[in-house]
C-alpha cells in the first residue's frame, strides 16, 4: 500500500497475542477452520487406518486379511471411480447453490449410487477375468449383495465429506471419520471369532450404515437448511450442464493423477522386483500424507473462494501461506527423521527407502504451488488449465522417473516426483511472473520501498522521541497504581507520531503513549486529545463512548506534544479483512457503530458558503500545493478547478444532514471482536470535526476496506468507483447506510466518492508533510482520479447506488425441458470438444490396457516369432484403441496438437517401452558392445583408433564421447541403465525432430501428424537402440529440418535467420561427422540433392558438409579408412545385387524367422507403395513436395558406398522412411477433400494403419527372442568380463549375448559360428579336444568359453550353426575332464580348462 496512506498512528491491539490465542483466532476464520478440519481428518484417518490393519494382522490369518484387503481395495477403487468426481463438483458449487443445495446433493447421490451399483455388479460378474482368487464371491449371493451394497454406500460416504466441506461444515468430517474408524476397530475385535474369514471386510463396511444415515439426516435436516439461510443473499445456482462440464474435466485430471500414482508401483514391481516395490510403496504412502495437507487446505480454499470469487486472490495467498506454514516443518521433520521412521518397519526399509522418502517429502513443497494453482483454476473454471497441469506433472514424473529407475533404483521415482513437481511449480510461478505487467512490478517495488522507508522513519521517530518517552513514563509512574509501568513494545506508525504500549510487566498493555515528532504531529495530537476529552461528554453517547480511548494525560515532553490514552482491546478490522473473514459482517458492525455517533449528533442543514468551504475549499486548498508541485498531469490544476466546480455545483444550497464525523474512518482504526460481529473500539480521532457529512465517514471506510481487502491503492480504487459505479457484495451494509442518510444525494455516487477521496487525501496531508512532498504518493493516489475528472463529458452512471445499484437478488431459472437441456449441453460442449474428449478417453483407455498388459507378458515364453508371440490380447486392444482414436482425431481435429502428440507418445511407449519394462535388462547384443566402448573411454579417457576389436567406434567416437561425458559428470558407475531406455529416448526425440521437419515441408497438420505416425510403424529396422546410428539419425533429421524451414525458397520467419540457420546446420554436420560414418555421407548426399533440386538456397552447405566429413574420415579416421577402403570398393555393386546380398538367406531360417523376414519385406513394399500413391495424389493436385520426394529417393545413392556389412539395404530404408511416411500420409489425406467431414478417410486410415502396425509388430519384435537376455545371462557375462585378466581368450558360441560391455579390450575373441566351415566341422565333431587345443595356448593368461541361452536361440532360429550344436558342445564339455565349470546358472555356462598345459 502506498506509504500506508490509510494507516494511522496507532491502533488498539498493541501486543501480539499468545500462540494459543492466535490459534483460536485462526480457527474463527472459515478458511483455516475447514482446512485444518480436513487436514486433521486425513491424518486421523491414516493413523487409525494403520491401527486397523495392525489389529487385523494379529487377530486374523494372513489369508483372511489378504482376501479382505483385496475386497476392500476393489470396493474403494470402484467407489472412487464411480463417484465420477462429483465430490469435486459439490465442493466447488455447493457454497453458492442456495435453495438448490439439497436437490444438487440428492441428484449427485442418486447418480453415484446408480453408477456404483452397476459397476460393482459388473465387477462381481467378471471376477473370473480380473481376479479369479475372489471368484468365491459369486458362489454366495449374500456376499454379492453385501459387496454391492457396501460399494454403493461407500460412494455416498465419500461424497458426504465433500458436501460437508462444500457447505463450510468441514469440522464434522474428522468427527465422523474418527467415529467410523473407532467403530470398525471395535468390530474387528468382535468379529474375529464369529467371522474369521471375512471379518476384516465386514468390520470395514458395516459401520458405514451406522454413519451414513445419521450424517445425512444431520445434513438434510439441519446443516443444509442452515447453509441455505446463511448464503441466501449470495446464491447462484449452477446449471446441470455447467456442473457436468466441470466435473468431466476435473475427472480427467483426477484420472491422470490416479493412473500415474497407480502405475508407478506396477512399473517398480516389473523392473526392480517386489522388495523394491515394498520400499517404494511405504515411502510413497508416508509422503502422501504430506500431500494431503495441501489438498485439505485447498478444498477449503475452493469452498471459500467459490462463495466469494472476488476474494480469490486473497484466499489463494492465505491458504498457500498457511499450507506452507504446516508443510515446511512437517517436511523438515520427515527429511531429518526419515531413517528413524523407516527403521520402525525394518532394516530393509531404512536401508533402501531413506533417500526416496526424503525426495518424496521434499516434493511435497512444490506441490503446494501446484495445488494452489489448480484450485484457483477450479474456482475460475479454467478446466483446461487443471487438466493441462495434471497432464504435465504426471507426464514429467513418468518421463523423468522411469528412465532413472534403472540407474538410481526406486530413488529414480523420487527424483522424478521432485523434479516434475519443481518444474511444474517453476513453470506456474514463471507463468505468473510473465503475466505481470510492468505496472505490477512497479507496484511491488513501490510497496517494498514504502515499507522500508516507513520502517526507517518509524525507528527514527522512536529514537528521536526516546527521551520524551522516558519523561512521560516517569510522570506516569508517579501516579497511583502505575508505579511499575514499563514500555512493553513499540508500535508501527506511518505518520509523524511515535507510539508505545505501556503497562505492568507481563500483563496486557494498559495504555498507549503517543509522541509527536514534528509540528504536524503536534497539531494532530492536540486535536486528538481534544476529541478524546470531548467525545465522552456528548449527550446520549455514554455507552457508545466506551469504544473511544480514555485520555489519561497530555502535554509536552522533550519539546513535543504527547498523549497518553487507555488501550482499547480488540482485533483491527483491517486484519479481519485481510484474513478472509469476509467483509460484510465487520463492515455492517462498523456502520452501525459509527452510525450511533452520527445519529446522536446529526442535524439537517442547508449547504451554505461556510459549509461549502469546509467540505470543498479547505481540503482542496490543502491538496492544491501538493498537486502543483508533484503531479504528473499537465492539467492537474485545471482538474482541481473542475473538481471544485462540480462539487460546489452539487452541494450548494442542498439540504443535507450534518453530524460529528470521525474524519478518517478506515479498517485500521476500528477494533472488533475476533469474529467481526461487534465493534469494541474506534481510535485515532485527530481528524474529527463537529460538522461534516456522515456519508463521507461511511464512504471512506468503504474505500479503504476495498483497498485493504484487494491490496490496492486509493487512486486505483476511486478511479474504479468512478468508472464503474456500484458496490461489491461485502460493501452493501455501508451502501445501504449511505442511501438511508440521503437517498437523493446517494442517487449519484460520483460527487460523494470524490468528496470522500478528497477528505481522505486532505487528512493524510494534515498528518504528515512528507505526503505532500512525495511525487510517487501524488501520482498513485491523486493523478488517476484527476485524470477521470479531466475527461469530458463526465460519465454519469446509468444506475444510482440506491436499491437498483445493489446486487440483483437471484431469481430461480425457469424449469426447462429435457430437449432444451440436451441442446444446451451439446451447444455448450460443442462437437469439437466432444470429439477431443472422446479421443482423450480412448487414449486413457489404451494406456490403461497397455499397463494391464505388461503384467501378462512373459519374455521367457517367446517363440521364434519373437515378442509378438507372447503379447496378450490387452496389448493388441490398446494398440487398436490408440490407432482408431488417432485416425479419427488426425482427420477431424488436426489442430489438437497436444492430444495428437500424446497419442504418438503413447504409441512410442507401447512399442518401445514394453521390452524395456518387461525384460528389465538391456536388449540386443550390439547395445552391450556400445556400453563397452563407453566403459573403455571411462577407464582410459581416450580412444585407441588401431585397437583390434570394435575399432570403428574408436575412429568415430562422437556419440560415445558424449555418453562418457554424461556418465562421468553425473557420477554414474556405468552407462548400462541409461542405455536400457535408449529406444524410448531416441524415439521421443525423433518425434520432436519429425514434427519440426514435417512442419517445414507442409502447413497441413494432418500430414505432419499422420506422417509421424506412419514413420513409427514403418521404421522396423531397429536402428533406434543405444547406438551412434540412432544418435546421428536424429541429428540428420534436425539438419534437414533446419534446411527446409529456414534455408529453403520460402523460409519461415520463426527461426534464427539465414546466417543463424547456416551456423546451426554446420554445427550439426560437424557433430555427425565424428559420430557416424555412413550418416556423414548421407547428410552430404541429402544436402547436395536439396541444392540440386532447388530446395536449399545455401549452395555452400553441401560443400561444407563434404569438407567436414572428408576431413574427419581422411585425417582422423585415415588409418581405418585406408585399411577398409579396398574391401568397401569391392562391395560396390548394382543396387539389386547389393539388395540380394543384404537379405537374409531364408532357407536357413526357422519357420517363424522366415515369416518375420517375409513380413518385413512386405512392410517395406507396402510403405513404398503407399508413398508412391501419396506422391501421385499430391502430384495430381499440383502439390507434390519436391524436398520430400528427393529426400525419399536420395538414400538409394548409398548403395554406392558398399554393402556396409550386409546392412546397407536397411540403412537405405532407414534414411528414406521419414519421407516415405510423409508422402504416404498424403495417400490418406488428399488435397481436394481437405474440408470434408466424412468418416470414410479416418476409417481407411485406421484400417491401413492397423495392417501396417500388425506387420510392424511382427517385423520389429520378430527377433526379440534372440535380442532378449535374461538376468542370468547377464550375470554369467559379467563374471567373465570382471574376472578375465588382460590377455585372456574368450570363446563364444555366437556374438549374440551380453558381450564386451566391460573390460572388453582385455580379451581375444573366437566365435564358433564365425569360424571357417572346415574348422567348425572339426569342432563339432570333437568339441572337447578342439576347444582344449584352442584354449591351451601358453601365451594366454586365461581362457574361457561361454555358452548362453540367447546364443542357442540364435543358432536355432538363424541357422548360423547346425541346430542343437551349442547344446551338444555344452554337454561334451560338461562330460570332459579337461574342462571345469567356473560359472553356471539356468541360462549360461562358463568353462575354463581344468588344467592348463605348461
Amino acid at each position, binding site marked *: 500500500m502506498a506509504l500506508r496512506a490509510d494507516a494511522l498512528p496507532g491502533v488498539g491491539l498493541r501486543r501480539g497475542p499468545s500462540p494459543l490465542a492466535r490459534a483460536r483466532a485462526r480457527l474463527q476464520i472459515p478458511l483455516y477452520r475447514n482446512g485444518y478440519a480436513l487436514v486433521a481428518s486425513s491424518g486421523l484417518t491414516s493413523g487409525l487406518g494403520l491401527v486397523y490393519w495392525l489389529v487385523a494382522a494379529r487377530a486374523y490369518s494372513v489369508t483372511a486379511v489378504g482376501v479382505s484387503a483385496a475386497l476392500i481395495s476393489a470396493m474403494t477403487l470402484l467407489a472412487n471411480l464411480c463417484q465420477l468426481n462429483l465430490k469435486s463438483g459439490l465442493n466447488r458449487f455447493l457454497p453458492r447453490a442456495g435453495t438448490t443445495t439439497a436437490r444438487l446433493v440428492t441428484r449427485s447421490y442418486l447418480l453415484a449410487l446408480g453408477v456404483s451399483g452397476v459397476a460393482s455388479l459388473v465387477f462381481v460378474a467378471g471376477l473370473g477375468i480380473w481376479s479369479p482368487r475372489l471368484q468365491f464371491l459369486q458362489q454366495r449371493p449374500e456376499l454379492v449383495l453385501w459387496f454391492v451394497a457396501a460399494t454403493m454406500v461407500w460412494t455416498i460416504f465419500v461424497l458426504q465429506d465433500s458436501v460437508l466441506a462444500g457447505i463450510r461444515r468441514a469440522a464434522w468430517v474428522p468427527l465422523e471419520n474418527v467415529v467410523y474408524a473407532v467403530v470398525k476397530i471395535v468390530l474387528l475385535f468382535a468379529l474375529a471369532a464369529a467371522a474369521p474369514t471375512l471379518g476384516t471386510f465386514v468390520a470395514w463396511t458395516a459401520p458405514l450404515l451406522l454413519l451414513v444415515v445419521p450424517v445425512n439426516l444431520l445434513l438434510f435436516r439441519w446443516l443444509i437448511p442452515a447453509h441455505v439461510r446463511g448464503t441466501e443473499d449470495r446464491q447462484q445456482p449452477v446449471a446441470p450442464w455447467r456442473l457436468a462440464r466441470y466435473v468431466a474435466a476435473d475427472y480427467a485430471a483426477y484420472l491422470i493423477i490416479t493412473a500415474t500414482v497407480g502405475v508407478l508401483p506396477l512399473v517398480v514391481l516389473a523392473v526392480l522386483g517386489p522388495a523394491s516395490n515394498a520400499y517404494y510403496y511405504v515411502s510413497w504412502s508416508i509422503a502422501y500424507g504430506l500431500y494431503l495437507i495441501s489438498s485439505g487446505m485447498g478444498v477449503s480454499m475452493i469452498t471459500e473462494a467459490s462463495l466469494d470469487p472476488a476474494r480469490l486472490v486473497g484466499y489463494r495467498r492465505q491458504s498457500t501461506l498457511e499450507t506452507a506454514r504446516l508443510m515446511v516443518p512437517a517436511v523438515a521433520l520427515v527429511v531429518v527423521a526419515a531413517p528413524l521412521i523407516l527403521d520402525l518397519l525394518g532394516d530393509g526399509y531404512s536401508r533402501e527407502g531413506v*533417500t526416496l522418502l526424503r*525426495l518424496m517429502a521434499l516434493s511435497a513443497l512444490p506441490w503446494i504451488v501446484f495445488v494452489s494453482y489448480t484450485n484457483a483454476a477450479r474456482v475460475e473454471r479454467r478446466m483446461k488449465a487443471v487438466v493441462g497441469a495434471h497432464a504435465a506433472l504426471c507426464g514429467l514424473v513418468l518421463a*523423468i522417473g522411469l528412465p*532413472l529407475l534403472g*540407474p*538410481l533404483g526406486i*530413488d*529414480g521415482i*523420487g*527424483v522424478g516426483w521432485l*523434479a516434475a513437481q519443481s518444474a511444474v511449480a517453476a513453470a506456474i510461478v*514463471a507463468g505468473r*511472473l*510473465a503475466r505481470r505487467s510492468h505496472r505490477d512490478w512497479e507496484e511491488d517495488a513501490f510497496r517494498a520501498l514504502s515499507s522500508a522507508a516507513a520502517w526507517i522513519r518509524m525507528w527514527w521517530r522512536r529514537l528521536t522521541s526516546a527521551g520524551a518517552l522516558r519523561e512521560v513514563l516517569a510522570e506516569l509512574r508517579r501516579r497511583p497504581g502505575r508505579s511499575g509501568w514499563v514500555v512493553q513494545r513499540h508500535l508501527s506508525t506511518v505518520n509523524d507520531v511515535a507510539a508505545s504500549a505501556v503497562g505492568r510487566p507481563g500483563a496486557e498493555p494498559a495504555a498507549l503513549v503517543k509522541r509527536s515528532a514534528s509540528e504536524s504531529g503536534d497539531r494532530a495530537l492536540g486535536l486528538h486529545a481534544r476529541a478524546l476529552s470531548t467525545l465522552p461528554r456528548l449527550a446520549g453517547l455514554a455507552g457508545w463512548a466506551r469504544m473511544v480511548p480514555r485520555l489519561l494525560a497530555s502535554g509536552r515532553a522533550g519539546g513535543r506534544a504527547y498523549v497518553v490514552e487507555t488501550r482499547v482491546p480488540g482485533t483491527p478490522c483491517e486484519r479481519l479483512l485481510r484474513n478472509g473473514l469476509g467483509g460484510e459482517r465487520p463492515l455492517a458492525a462498523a456502520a452501525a457503530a459509527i452510525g450511533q455517533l452520527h445519529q446522536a449528533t446529526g442535524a439537517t442543514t442547508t449547504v451554505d458558503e461556510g459549509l461549502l468551504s469546509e467540505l470543498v475549499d479547505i481540503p482542496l486548498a490543502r491538496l492544491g500545493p501538493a498537486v502543483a508541485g508533484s503531479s504528473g498531469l499537465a492539467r492537474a490544476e485545471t482538474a482541481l478547478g473542475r473538481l471544485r466546480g462540480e462539487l460546489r455545483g452539487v452541494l450548494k444550497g442542498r439540504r443535507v444532514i450534518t453530524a460529528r464525523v470521525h474524519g478518517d474512518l478506515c479498517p485500521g482504526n476500528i477494533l472488533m471482536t475476533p469474529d467481526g460481529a461487534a465493534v469494541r473500539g474506534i481510535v485515532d480521532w485527530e481528524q474529527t470535526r463537529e460538522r461534516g457529512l456522515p456519508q463521507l465517514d461511511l464512504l471512506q471506510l468503504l474505500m479503504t476496506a476495498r483497498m485493504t481487502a484487494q491490496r490496492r491503492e486509493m487512486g486505483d480504487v476511486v478511479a474504479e468507483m468512478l468508472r464503474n459505479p456500484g458496490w461489491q457484495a461485502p460493501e452493501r451494509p455501508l451502501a445501504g447506510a449511505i442511501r438511508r442518510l440521503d437517498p437523493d444525494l446517494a442517487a449519484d455516487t460520483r460527487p460523494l466518492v470524490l468528496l470522500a477521496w478528497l477528505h481522505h487525501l486532505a487528512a493524510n496531508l494534515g498528518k504528515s508533510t512528507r505526503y505532500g512532498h512525495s511525487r510517487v504518493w501524488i501520482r498513485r493516489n491523486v493523478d488517476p482520479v484527476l485524470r477521470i475528472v479531466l475527461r469530458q463529458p463526465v460519465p454519469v452512471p446509468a444506475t444510482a447506488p440506491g436499491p437498483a445499484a445493489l446486487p440483483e437478488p437471484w431469481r430461480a431459472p425457469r424449469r426447462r425441458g429435457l430437449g432444451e437441456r440436451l441442446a444446451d449441453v451439446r451447444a455448450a460442449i460443442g462437437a469439437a470438444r466432444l470429439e477431443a474428449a472422446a479421443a482423450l478417453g480412448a487414449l486413457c483407455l489404451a494406456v490403461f490396457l497397455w499397463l494391464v498388459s505388461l503384467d501378462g507378458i512373459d519374455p521367457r515364453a517367446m517363440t521364434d516369432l519373437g515378442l509378438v508371440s507372447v503379447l496378450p490380447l490387452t496389448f493388441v486392444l490398446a494398440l487398436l484403441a490408440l490407432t482408431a482414436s488417432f485416425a479419427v482425431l488426425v482427420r477431424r481435429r488436426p489442430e489438437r496438437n497436444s492430444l495428437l502428440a500424446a497419442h504418438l507418445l503413447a504409441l512410442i511407449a507401447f512399442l518401445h517401452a514394453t521390452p524395456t519394462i518387461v525384460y528389465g535388462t538391456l536388449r540386443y547384443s550390439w547395445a552391450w558392445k556400445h556400453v563397452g566402448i563407453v566403459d573403455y*573411454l571411462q577407464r*582410459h*579417457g*581416450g*580412444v585407441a583408433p588401431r585397437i583390434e576389436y570394435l575399432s570403428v567406434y574408436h575412429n568415430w*567416437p*562422437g*556419440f*560415445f*564421447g*558424449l555418453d*562418457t*561425458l*554424461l556418465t*562421468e*559428470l*553425473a*557420477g*554414474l558407475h556405468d552407462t548400462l541403465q541409461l542405455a536400457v531406455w535408449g529406444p524410448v529416448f531416441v524415439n521421443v526425440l525423433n518425434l*520432436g525432430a519429425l514434427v*519440426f521437419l514435417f512442419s517445414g515441408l507442409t502447413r497441413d497438420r494432418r500430414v505432419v501428424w499422420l506422417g509421424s505416425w506412419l514413420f513409427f510403424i514403418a521404421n522396423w529396422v531397429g536402428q533406434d537402440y543405444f547406438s551412434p546410428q540412432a544418435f546421428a539419425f536424429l*541429428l540428420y533429421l*534436425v539438419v534437414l529440418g533446419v534446411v527446409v524451414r529456414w534455408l529453403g525458397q520460402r523460409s519461415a*520467419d*520463426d*527461426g*534464427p*535467420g539465414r546466417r*543463424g540457420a547456416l551456423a*546451426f546446420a554446420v*554445427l*550439426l554436420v*560437424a*557433430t555427425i561427422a*565424428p*559420430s557416424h560414418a555412413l550418416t556423414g555421407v548421407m547428410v552430404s548426399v541429402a544436402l547436395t540433392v536439396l541444392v540440386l533440386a532447388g530446395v536449399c538456397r545455401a549452395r555452400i552447405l553441401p560443400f561444407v558438409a563434404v569438407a567436414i566429413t572428408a576431413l574427419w574420415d581422411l585425417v*582422423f579416421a585415415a588409418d581405418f579408412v585406408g585399411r577398409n577402403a579396398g574391401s568397401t570398393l569391392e562391395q560396390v555393386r548394382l543396387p539389386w545385387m547389393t539388395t540380394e546380398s543384404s537379405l537374409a538367406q531364408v532357407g536357413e531360417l526357422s519357420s517363424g524367422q522366415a515369416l518375420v523376414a517375409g513380413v518385413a519385406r512386405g512392410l517395406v513394399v507396402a510403405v513404398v507403395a503407399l508413398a508412391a500413391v501419396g506422391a501421385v495424389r499430391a502430384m495430381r493436385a499440383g502439390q507434390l513436395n519436391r524436398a520430400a520426394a528427393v529426400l525419399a529417393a536420395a538414400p538409394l545413392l548409398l548403395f554406392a558406398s558398399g554393402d556396409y556389412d550386409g546392412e546397407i539395404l536397411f540403412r537405405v530404408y532407414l534414411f528414406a522412411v521419414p519421407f516415405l511416411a510423409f508422402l504416404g500420409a498424403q495417400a490418406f489425406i488428399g488435397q481436394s477433400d481437405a474440408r470434408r467431414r466424412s468418416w470414410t478417410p479416418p476409417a481407411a486410415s485406421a484400417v491401413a494403419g492397423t495392417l501396417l502396425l500388425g506387420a510392424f509388430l511382427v517385423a520389429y519384435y520378430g527377433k526379440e527372442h534372440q535380442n532378449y537376455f535374461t538376468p542370468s545371462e547377464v550375470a554369467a557375462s559379467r563374471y567373465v568380463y570382471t574376472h578375465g585378466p588382460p590377455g585372456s581368450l574368450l570363446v563364444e558360441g555366437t556374438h549374440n549375448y551380453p558381450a564386451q560391455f566391460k573390460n572388453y579390450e582385455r580379451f581375444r575373441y573366437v566365435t564358433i559360428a564365425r569360424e571357417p566351415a572346415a574348422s567348425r566341422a572339426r569342432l563339432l565333431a570333437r568339441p572337447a579336444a578342439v576347444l582344449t587345443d584352442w584354449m591351451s595356448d601358453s601365451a594366454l593368461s586365461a581362457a574361457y568359453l561361454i555358452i548362453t541361452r540367447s546364443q542357442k536361440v540364435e543358432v536355432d532360429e538363424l541357422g548360423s550353426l547346425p541346430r542343437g550344436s551349442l547344446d551338444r558342445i555344452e554337454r561334451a564339455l560338461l562330460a570332459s575332464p579337461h574342462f571345469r565349470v567356473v560359472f553356471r546358472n539356468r541360462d549360461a555356462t562358463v568353462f575354463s580348462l581344468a588344467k592348463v598345459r605348461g
Partner: protein
Amino acid sequence: MSNPLRWPVVIVLSSLLMSNLVLAGVHTPVRVLVTLWFLLVCTGMAFVPLFRIPALSIELALGVVTSIALDTVVATTIVVAGGLSARSGLFALQAICLVGCALQARAWAQARGARV
C-alpha cells in the same frame, strides 16, 4: 521473464552448482538432474538467445539440439586428445558457456546503448 540476461545468469549459476557437485564428488540423484540440465540445456542456451528467435518453443528446441551438438564436439575433441574426465569435460564446457554468456551480455549492453 523477459530479462535478456536471464539465461546468462541461469547458466552461470548452473555452472557453479555443477562445479560444486563434481569437485566435491557428490553422488546423489540431484547430480544426475543437474548434469542433464547443464548438458542438455545450458550449453546451447549460452548461444541460441543471440539469434533472437521469436518463438520460445523453437528457441528451446534449438537450445537442446545445440547443447547436444556442442557437448559432442567438446567430448570428441577431448576423447581424441586422450584426456576425457569429469573435470576436463566440465571445465571445457564451462569455458564455452562463459563465452556464450559474455556474448549475450555484450549484445545486451550494445542494445541498451543503442536505445539510450
